[in-house]
């Protein structure tokens, strides 16, 4: 069934899932597509808000120039760093081959 152009498509859902490295099944593509469409419709009011006169707020912060001095501090031991590693070899984290 062709999908309306303005609506989120299954292809887009697959693309987004891939960008987010989320494995999803074919059924889930449909389910997420429908749910995301529903959510996007529900929050459509966002697009209608008149924001022509205001800047964006990325931070609610009043702070500026928060910096630390360049001093080295004790860190973790390699053992502590690797304590939770699902796969390791010696003092390294180990991962699967990288080729895609």
């Amino acid at each position: 069934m062709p999908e309306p152009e303005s609506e989120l498509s299954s292809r887009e859902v697959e693309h987004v899932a891939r960008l987010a490295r989320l494995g999803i099944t074919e059924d889930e593509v449909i389910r997420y597509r429908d749910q995301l469409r529903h959510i996007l419709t529900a929050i459509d009011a966002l697009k209608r808000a008149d924001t022509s006169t205001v800047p964006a707020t990325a931070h609610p912060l009043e702070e500026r120039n928060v910096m630390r001095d360049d001093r080295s501090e004790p860190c973790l031991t390699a053992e502590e760093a690797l304590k939770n590693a699902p796969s390791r070899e010696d003092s390294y984290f180990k991962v699967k081959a990288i080729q895609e």
Partner: protein
Amino acid sequence: MAITTRYEVVVGLEVHAQVLTQSKMFCGCSTDYLVAPPNANTCPVCLGLPGSLPVINRRAVEATIRTALALNCEIPEFSKFDRKNYFYPDLPKGYQISQYDLPFSRHGHLDFDVNGEARRAGITRVHLEEDTGKLQHEGAIEQAQSSLINFNRAGVPLMEIVSEPDLRSADEAREYVMRLRAILQYIGVNNGDMESGQLRCDANVSLRPVGRIEFGTKVEVKNMNSFRAIHRAIEYEIVRQTEVLEAGGRLVQETRGWNDARGLTVSQRTKEFAEDYRYFPEPDLPPLEVSRQWVAEIGSSLPELPAARRDRLIANFGLSPYDASVLTSSKPMAEYFEETVRLGAPAKAAANWILGDFSRFLNADHKEIQDASVKPVHLQQLIALIDSGVISGKMAKQTFEAMYRAPDPEPALTAAKGSSQISGDAELTGIVDQVIAENEKSVADFKAGKEQALKFLIGQGMKLSKGRANPQRLEALLREKIA
């Protein structure tokens, strides 16, 4: 070559330079990752553990602004960090804290020269980000079953210096990077080590028919870790791309890795799946207001830069533009030169030695001048021996090599002096007599108690003997005769 007249080469460079700091960009872990055991220089922040938060290293920010000023950049008053989102196992958080639309600087330029001719490349921006961890593969990346990760490098402050696509040949690209590296070293923000990856260079290479304004399809070349590699890789790409175009083919936008052993570039990633970095402002870091006063403070501490030093060497010492350029391409080398001259060596001779045999030996050994056992004081003495005719040019070359190869150059230098030294009193007496006869005033001064005058008389004796007199014997005989 016909091909080079049909196409114009367009190169832009992205240089990543680690900032010399004690601690990492956003945490207190030490940056001495090259010597630390694997994963021992890590903490919750640079491992990207849940709940950890970054805090900006002030020194890294100042080093970036310092670099930007040295590259004649504008420093905007407002800046911020952003997240660049992508997945890779050497990137602990799944995003790199970098700068997107409001970097610390933009619109600069870098002057350099190619075979003594002045060139200028625009600097698009200098921004600050964090380095990634390091992956190690068993064998080639394409065949490896698994990779090992060391996060010691993750979070080391990293500047990205992006040039405009203003470079028109491999020569220009190489000279640009050499000059850039010299500047980074001069201002003390990077150690210039390309082999260990503390300075890294990627090149965007494209061709366009001569006269065309639009750019051709660009290819990003990575993994060049020496000046020579930069030059070879770009030359290779120019030939490869020309051949594709000449054969009526189309180039694809892609990333290619330089394989130094095989002397060619290999496709790493075609943009079949386009990355979308989804930049957005880093919510864990408040923005920065870069006051003009802060910029002025940083600017006031900038030392003399290579271009200025080059001009000064030409003006003060009469060096050729070429020699002056090469000497100032490395801060230690320029300093070595000036020290040798300060000790009394003629500038031209000092430059010739440093740029000649000395550089040849250093290059062959992959060594830097500051690490050589021959120090300016030794080189100056060697030059003095030649100038005073004590040793011949041929012998000087042998002496220099012997000095260079030895852990301590003194014995070789002394041997050269001694090889023709006059220690016999019979011959020395004649010299002493002549000195006394020709310098009545100084003799009188010395008799009146002026020790200084004896120094002068010794000097005259050395001159008469063309430096060959044994100074101790000479002094003893002078004292004896005058008394």
